[in-house]
């Protein structure tokens, strides 16, 4: 009950006119940052951090966290419209979001994405409000072995679901791992696979690979059709939002499942990226329309977006309660807290009640305001696709180049992006799946790191992955997910089937 009273105090703080204005400004800035290439949430928050020094800490964190929400919303826009995920957790959104846009259903895809984001975030905030201390204690149980278990589960729930030949899937995923391992090995502090090139020191950044493989690759694929290309003449309809809403309740089960996966991943903190992939993979298995995933199913947008936002939001909890950022953006927010003289950690909830509950209240309101703002933009955004391809294509190319450049401020990366683009096109034509490769590039390093940390701790014994009930059950879940096709076959064989003629 005390939490509820605290929350109402928080609302009182947030509802001051100045704070509401700050919130709207933050959301708008965030959406712009999310849409612009190369200005991810982390960058955006970092750049705007100094602007907030003149405000009170509470107003400042409201502004910054609203930029964060805005960027989360904005990330989905480019994924759906141009197949360019601006953030790692939007990758899974492209799988069905972009095909929907190609079918002329960009409005539906965007509405579904925004609404699911909102649902996911709301679920996570409610969880934070009610069980924050409990959750913080749960997060502490996650050591390297448990973290590896989570990554293992993410990979397993994703393998075996692609339609492409299994060996091509394996090859694609392993190439992703290999690319991820280039550069400095964090565990030994040694350079590997750089072959003496200074440029390879930093490795292959995920964003460059994705902008190339997805963004540029998509333009090349579209070009095959030539310029007679039909222009995706989507009817722009201002009621599209409500029509989509009417469809969404059907997917409540997917939503709920994705919320839970997201919160779990966010708190761990494994982050929003494995959450979105895992949620997409599981939704594909569980859905009766699973075989249609990847061709523009609305459920395939709902699942990853819900999970990503539930994770993105709940990632703020370990940051506040433990001082461990669950995402790069959370890391910058953490820096902000320190500058305002607030020490994140267990004492923050005791000593800075007004601040913490102001922040939580702003999460509720910020998401509502954010949803309203982005939904009003849906028809406008969908209209972008009506611009002729020979104008929009070079502009997308320019934006891709800017995005690739800003990752490391390096023109070498721009060339690399082009190489990835051609490579992605060839892979696609040769029937290699891109999704497992990207998953491996994104999570490869983190998975390898936790695997080796565990082995260091156990002195090389693999039994560490079965050493307690927590890691044991995560690993078991992973194995079940991996062998699910076989298991479900066995189950259907055992179960007596109604005779059909």
């Amino acid at each position, binding site marked *: 009950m005390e939490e509820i009273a605290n929350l109402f105090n928080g609302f009182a703080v947030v509802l001051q006119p100045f704070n509401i204005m700050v919130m709207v400004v933050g959301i708008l800035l965030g959406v712009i*940052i999310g849409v*612009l290439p*190369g*200005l991810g949430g982390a960058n*955006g928050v970092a*750049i705007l951090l100094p602007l907030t020094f003149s405000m009170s800490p509470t107003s400042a964190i409201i502004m910054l966290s609203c930029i964060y929400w805005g960027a989360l919303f904005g990330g989905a826009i480019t994924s759906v419209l141009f197949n360019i995920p601006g953030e790692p957790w939007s990758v899974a959104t492209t799988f069905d979001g972009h095909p929907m846009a190609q079918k002329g259903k960009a409005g539906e895809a965007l509405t579904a994405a925004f609404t699911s984001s909102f649902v996911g975030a709301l679920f996570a905030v409610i969880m934070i409000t009610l069980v924050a201390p409990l959750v913080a204690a749960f997060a502490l149980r996650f050591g390297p072995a448990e973290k590896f278990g989570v990554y293992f589960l993410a990979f397993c729930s994703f393998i075996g679901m692609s339609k492409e*030949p299994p*060996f*091509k899937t*394996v*090859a694609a995923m*392993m*190439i992703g*791992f*290999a690319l991820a*391992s280039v550069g400095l*090995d964090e*565990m*030994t502090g*040694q*350079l*590997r*696979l750089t*072959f003496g090139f200074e440029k390879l020191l930093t490795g292959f950044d995920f964003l460059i690979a994705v902008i190339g493989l997805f963004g*540029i690759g998509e333009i*090349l694929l579209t*070009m*095959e*059709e*030539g*310029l007679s290309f039909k222009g995706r003449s989507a009817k722009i309809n201002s009621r599209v939002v409500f029509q989509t809403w009417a469809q969404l309740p059907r997917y409540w089960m997917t939503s709920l499942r994705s919320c839970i996966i997201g919160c779990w991943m966010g708190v761990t903190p494994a982050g929003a990226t494995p959450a979105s992939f895992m949620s997409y993979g599981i939704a594909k298995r569980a859905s009766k329309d699973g075989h249609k995933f990847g061709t523009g199913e609305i459920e395939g947008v709902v699942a990853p977006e819900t999970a990503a936002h539930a994770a993105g939001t709940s990632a703020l909890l370990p940051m506040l309660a433990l001082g461990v950022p669950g995402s790069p953006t959370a890391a910058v927010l953490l820096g902000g807290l320190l500058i305002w003289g607030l020490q994140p950690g267990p004492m923050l909830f005791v000593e800075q009640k007004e601040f913490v509950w102001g922040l939580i209240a702003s999460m509720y309101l910020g998401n509502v305001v954010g949803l309203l703002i982005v939904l009003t933009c849906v028809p406008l955004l969908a209209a972008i696709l009506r611009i*002729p391809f*020979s*104008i929009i*294509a*070079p*502009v997308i*190319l*320019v934006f891709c*180049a*800017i995005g690739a*450049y*800003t990752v490391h*401020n390096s*023109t070498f990366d*721009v*060339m690399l*992006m*082009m190489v990835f*683009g051609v490579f992605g*096109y*060839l*892979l696609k*034509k*040769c029937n*290699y799946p891109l999704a497992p490769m990207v998953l491996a590039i994104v999570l490869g390093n983190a998975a*390898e790191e936790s695997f*080796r940390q565990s*082995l260091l701790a156990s002195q*090389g014994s693999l039994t560490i992955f079965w050493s307690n009930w927590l890691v044991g059950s995560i690993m078991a879940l992973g194995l079940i997910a991996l062998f699910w096709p076989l298991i479900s076959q066995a189950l259907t064989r055992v179960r007596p089937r109604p005779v059909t003629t």
Partner: protein
Amino acid sequence: MAGLMIVFALIVIGGSMSVGFNWDFDGPRAGFFPFYIGLFILGASIVNFWQSWSDGAGGRLFAEWGQIRQVVSVVVPSTVYVALVPWIGIYVSSALLIAVFMKWLGRYGWSMVLPVAAGVPVATFIVFERWFLVPLPKGLIEELLGF
């Protein structure tokens, strides 16, 4: 494609071996992971190679010639574009890319080409350099203008 991947796998394996792929006194060494991954790629690619061979698809192209020409007509200007960025900066080369693309592939008139080709870089400049203070690569022309 599978052939390319075999080459790639061999590079990865070679690179891993040079940093050490076995166990050190304090745990697996830097090349431990990539080495086995290289082996996986090698194995999978050999299977893929063999499969495409036995399908008789080895000689078939992945797309029609007309399609390939279309794709190349995008790849070439884009490659020139990314090669120009380090030399003349991103703004001028972007303007050139958009102009070439619209004129050559889209067959628009100059009255349409020029505003778009000039407008996009200028808008980009204002947003990135002025508002968000993100420096993008610049060349001689920007230098002369004093940025």
